[in-house]
């Protein structure tokens, strides 16, 4: 028997072997909603563990606030909800313009305002518990970094050496990294990991041949960003060539419009 006949016969047998057709399920016209999906049940332990983790973190923060132990950078102050004494202004804290910088969001109370924190020049800022400050356009020398709210970033760098094989009409090219962005739980740092590297022409955004000795960045290289001041971040390489040889990477700062005049020199502006 040929395959066609064999398939027909198999189909016929299969249909005959099937039990009766199922009945139309009762349609709930009042809510018009499907019953809870099975995959949602898998979220229950996840939600429970997240709740436990949140409680543990809350207890740790409370403990830090009441005992005066250092609080993790970026964690919010809970002094308003506990019986700890309000922060007392000291002679040093208000007078130091370059002391610990508060977050760009005025509504967030940061732990760094506690009276027992000694002022340090340009110390790490307690980042707000929101991720918005990282989102936006950043620059340093010839490098431009755009962090989007969707968890991705695009970074453009001048290629080293210049790209070859430019199409007619293209005035130049730059090395472009596409990066994933992950934030720490306290929102104080962002970790960016290169997920794509390409050479892109100026203006047209068309991909051209890679530089002769390869790209500066590799997929998988990653770095962290943290605030030094409002509109000023510092980059620390954690993975890849620049992590192994930090001296190969130039200026670690990234600036944004709105940066205080006294700090613009950080980005070579």
């Amino acid at each position: 028997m040929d395959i066609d006949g064999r398939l027909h016969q198999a189909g016929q047998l299969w249909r005959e072997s099937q039990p009766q057709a199922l009945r139309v399920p009762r349609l709930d016209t009042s809510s018009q909603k499907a019953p809870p999906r099975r995959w949602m049940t898998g979220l229950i332990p996840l939600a429970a563990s997240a709740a436990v983790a949140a409680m543990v973190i809350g207890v740790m923060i409370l403990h830090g606030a009441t005992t005066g132990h250092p609080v993790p950078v970026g964690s919010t102050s809970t002094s308003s909800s506990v019986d700890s004494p309000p922060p007392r202004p000291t002679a040093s804290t208000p007078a130091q313009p370059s002391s610990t910088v508060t977050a760009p969001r005025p509504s967030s109370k940061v732990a760094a305002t506690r009276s027992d924190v000694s002022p340090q020049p340009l110390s790490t800022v307690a980042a707000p518990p929101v991720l918005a400050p990282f989102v936006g356009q950043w620059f340093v020398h010839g490098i431009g970094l755009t962090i989007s709210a969707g968890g991705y970033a695009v970074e453009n760098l001048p290629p080293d050496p210049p790209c070859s094989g430019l199409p007619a009409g293209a005035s130049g090219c730059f090395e472009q990294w596409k990066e994933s962005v992950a934030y720490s739980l306290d929102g104080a740092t962002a970790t960016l990991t290169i997920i794509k590297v390409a050479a892109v022409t100026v203006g047209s955004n068309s991909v051209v041949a890679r530089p002769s000795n390869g790209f500066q960045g590799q997929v998988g290289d990653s770095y962290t960003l943290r605030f030094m001041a409002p509109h000023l971040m510092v980059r620390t390489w954690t993975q890849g060539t620049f992590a192994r040889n930090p001296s190969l990477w130039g200026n670690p700062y990234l600036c944004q419009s709105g940066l205080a005049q006294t700090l613009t020199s950080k980005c070579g502006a």
Partner: protein
Amino acid sequence: MTAVAREAPKRLHSVEEFTAELNAVMPVVTRVARRFAPSDQAEDVIQEACLAAWRYRHRFDPEQGSFQTWILKIVLHEGYKAGARGRRSGLLLARLTDRSHLSTAALQWGGDHQLETTVARLPRRQREVIGLYYFVDLPVQQVADLLGISCGTVKSTLADARRSIQAHLAGQESS
């Protein structure tokens, strides 16, 4: 310009109308669910599909195709979703889930096990066409409508699948 009077397409507003349409196509719906959903989830898939169809009944346009084709598309989609859920849950290893159930089913109903196993190894599109044409017993035109491809593509896919099956079976017999 004279206005052309057109008959309004039949919409399914009431539960009675909807259930009547559904009852008429239920045998085919059941066969598609049993063929393309994981073997133990055919009922769930039909329920999900019927509820989804009822919820989105305003999207059904009789001018775009028949009610049967529309509901079968939903059933097929829900069947694959159920298979994906099963894979994610780790019920069975990776892609073996939705293929192995076919051979298991073949063992259960005492059919052509060798043929079913070979069909289960075909690429997804070929499996779909073979399943809908030979097992669910849909005409070529309806298979084409359901999968959103042309009749010619259905026929050529069937021919390719038959060739693959023949080659595979010949290889098995010679070894």
